[in-house]
């Protein structure tokens, strides 16, 4: 199969989805009104509520939702062959993610820019809101753990990426200081910062850094995980303007450059996909494709995290209600495009089927490593740079995406823990340092649970992360559906993806429950003991999924009854 053709077909289908399906949703389902006074105007305070250019908002939405997850998920899921991953990413983007992100922005704009969490309490039940908060906390914990393991793996696989990845933090701080303290206009720090970021890749290639095995009795993977979480803890306590904001900004720029580079290289190099369309020789460790495919690829097909972005900041800044289609649907399409190119990199960037099968000898392998290895071959032959440079470049790009998410994730977890301290009157949890330590410890426990004592090979937690993400998406789609029913509009376009994704999440959680139990039992103590936190979380996810379904059923029965009462 020709990779360029696959890219063109995939992008065309996503474009068709935007052109026609999002138009249908905008006109018939969400019924966008250009004259509706959005919260950015009605509640304008020039701080949170500011009418903003839709291109800027689209850029925010796109860069906030597209990161390491739509690279890792498809990079793992192609173990079942490229075709199922391709179909799920393309159709998921068209009929799931687009509907979800667009709907989350719409629902929030129509409800005075309230977040999906708050809307869950208003529209469904207060109990559903509690469910929502628990799911969000679990999601944050898992995303931090999984990205910590992914970065640690990447540093070991590509030691040349260590210096450039850490230099990016210095560049970000310098940009923050230049803009806020020295009031330098943004253009020059952007250009110089981006040039330094790419120039330092040469330095990384010249001076690769590997940690010594056995330092403090720990394997290199475990050392990296600890270093990364110590960093994330410190970073989350720093002022936003100093690190998080410029790091986010650099990431956005990187995303556009990276996507352009990858798609340009695919179209020029036109590699052949060596992986099978449907893999008949799936390793024994791989779980069944149904339902695991639908949680292994969450971001890139549908992700509940997008609803938090759409209803958190985007809806407060939407200039016109009609912009929701461009910002929400097209924003999620951008993430679909990233997932699509990740599939191509992980299946077409290998010399032979044997080489590809060696990468995918076990479930959880691949991911970032396959994306980097395959992507580097494609970029190298397409753009003409050395393969070593391309490898470092793509690793740095992915590490920066994951690192920024960790920075923000640990910070958000700290806020949640501090809020719990305040709600339940536990003063010690209100302390920023204690709350950060608690957040970091929880993530570390999970990271080692996923990666074992060595911290290596730990993508075991990935499907659990995807399951939680899909549960959140199910809750958001539930809120949108209930709002549509209340307005007397057809809810099947949001309800069908909601039922599908929640069912898949529940089924996947049950499959993983069995897998984790068996692996923990077979591994013995203490290695098996590290799996118990994951087992416990999985159990909680199963319970949450059942509750989400019960809440959904109860909300619809209630709405149907009230509709029947209104009509009589």
């Amino acid at each position, binding site marked *: 199969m020709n990779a360029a053709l696959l890219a063109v077909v995939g992008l065309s289908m996503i474009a068709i989805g935007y052109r026609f399906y999002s138009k249908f949703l905008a006109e018939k389902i969400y019924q966008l009104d250009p004259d509706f006074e959005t919260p950015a105007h009605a509640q304008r305070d020039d*701080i*949170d509520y*500011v009418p*903003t*250019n839709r*291109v*800027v*908002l689209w*850029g*925010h939405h796109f860069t*906030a939702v597209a990161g390491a997850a739509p690279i890792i998920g498809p990079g793992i899921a192609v173990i079942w062959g490229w075709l199922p991953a391709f179909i799920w990413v393309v159709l998921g983007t068209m009929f799931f993610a687009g509907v979800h992100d667009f709907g989350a922005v719409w629902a929030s704009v129509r409800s005075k820019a309230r977040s999906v969490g708050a809307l869950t309490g208003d529209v469904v039940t207060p109990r559903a809101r509690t469910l929502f908060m628990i799911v969000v906390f679990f999601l944050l914990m898992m995303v931090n753990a999984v990205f910590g393991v992914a970065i640690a793996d990447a540093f070991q696989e590509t030691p040349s990426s260590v210096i450039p990845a850490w230099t990016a933090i210095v560049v970000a701080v310098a940009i923050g200081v230049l*803009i806020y303290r020295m009031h330098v*206009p*943004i*253009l020059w720090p*952007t250009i110089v910062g981006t040039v330094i970021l790419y120039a330092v890749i040469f330095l990384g290639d010249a001076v690769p850094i590997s940690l010594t095995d056995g330092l403090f009795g720990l394997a290199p993977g475990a050392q990296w995980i600890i270093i990364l979480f110590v960093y994330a803890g410190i970073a989350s306590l720093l*002022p*936003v*303007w100093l690190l*998080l*904001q*410029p790091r*986010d*900004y650099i990431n*956005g720029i990187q995303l556009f450059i990276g996507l352009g580079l990858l798609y340009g290289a695919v179209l020029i190099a036109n590699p052949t996909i060596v992986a099978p369309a449907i893999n008949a020789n799936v390793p024994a460790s791989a779980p069944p494709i149904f339902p695991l495919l639908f949680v292994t690829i969450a971001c890139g097909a549908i992700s509940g995290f997008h609803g938090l972005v759409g209803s958190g*900041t985007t809806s*407060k*800044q939407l200039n016109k209600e009609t912009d929701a289609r461009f910002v929400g649907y097209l924003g999620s399409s951008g993430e679909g495009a990233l997932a699509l190119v990740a599939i191509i990199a992980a299946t077409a960037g290998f010399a032979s089927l044997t080489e590809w099968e060696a990468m995918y000898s076990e479930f959880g392998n691949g991911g970032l490593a396959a994306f980097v290895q395959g992507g580097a071959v494609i970029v190298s032959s397409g753009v003409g740079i050395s393969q070593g440079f391309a490898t470092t470049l793509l690793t740095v790009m992915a590490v920066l995406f994951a690192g920024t998410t960790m920075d923000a994730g640990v910070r958000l977890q700290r806020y949640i823990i501090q809020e719990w301290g305040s709600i339940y009157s536990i003063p010690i949890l209100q302390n920023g340092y204690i709350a950060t330590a608690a957040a970091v410890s929880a993530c570390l426990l999970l990271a080692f649970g996923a990666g074992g004592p060595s911290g290596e090979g730990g993508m075991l937690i990935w499907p659990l992360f995807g399951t939680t993400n899909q549960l959140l998406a199910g809750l958001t789609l539930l809120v949108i559906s209930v709002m549509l029913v209340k307005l007397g509009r057809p809810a099947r376009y949001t309800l069908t993806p909601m039922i599908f994704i929640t069912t898949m999440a529940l089924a996947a959680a049950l499959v993983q429950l069995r897998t984790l139990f068996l692996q923990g039992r077979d591994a013995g103590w203490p290695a098996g003991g590290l799996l118990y936190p994951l087992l416990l979380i999985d159990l909680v996810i199963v319970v949450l999924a059942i509750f989400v379904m019960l809440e959904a059923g109860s909300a619809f029965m209630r709405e149907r009854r009230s509709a029947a009462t209104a009509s009589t």
Partner: protein
Amino acid sequence: MTDASGPLDRFKALLEEFYVAPYRGALARAQRDEDDLFMLFVFAELMGVPNPAAYYTLELQPLLLERFHEWHRRQGLEHSPLDGFRCC
């Protein structure tokens, strides 16, 4: 967003907005928290809290009185805590 005329200016304005917009609210709240602490320093002595810097902050009081009402409301005090200054 700044006024933009040429394509380069428009691009710069877009970049600036792309940089600022997601964190505008967070930074404004952080700024307000710092300002609130500063207000406490300035008015501490008047509320009976000894302030070693009172000699220096005294002359700032008239300049900050305009913000005083919003500040005491944000601190959870419905009415002015100062006997000599009844803003509400």
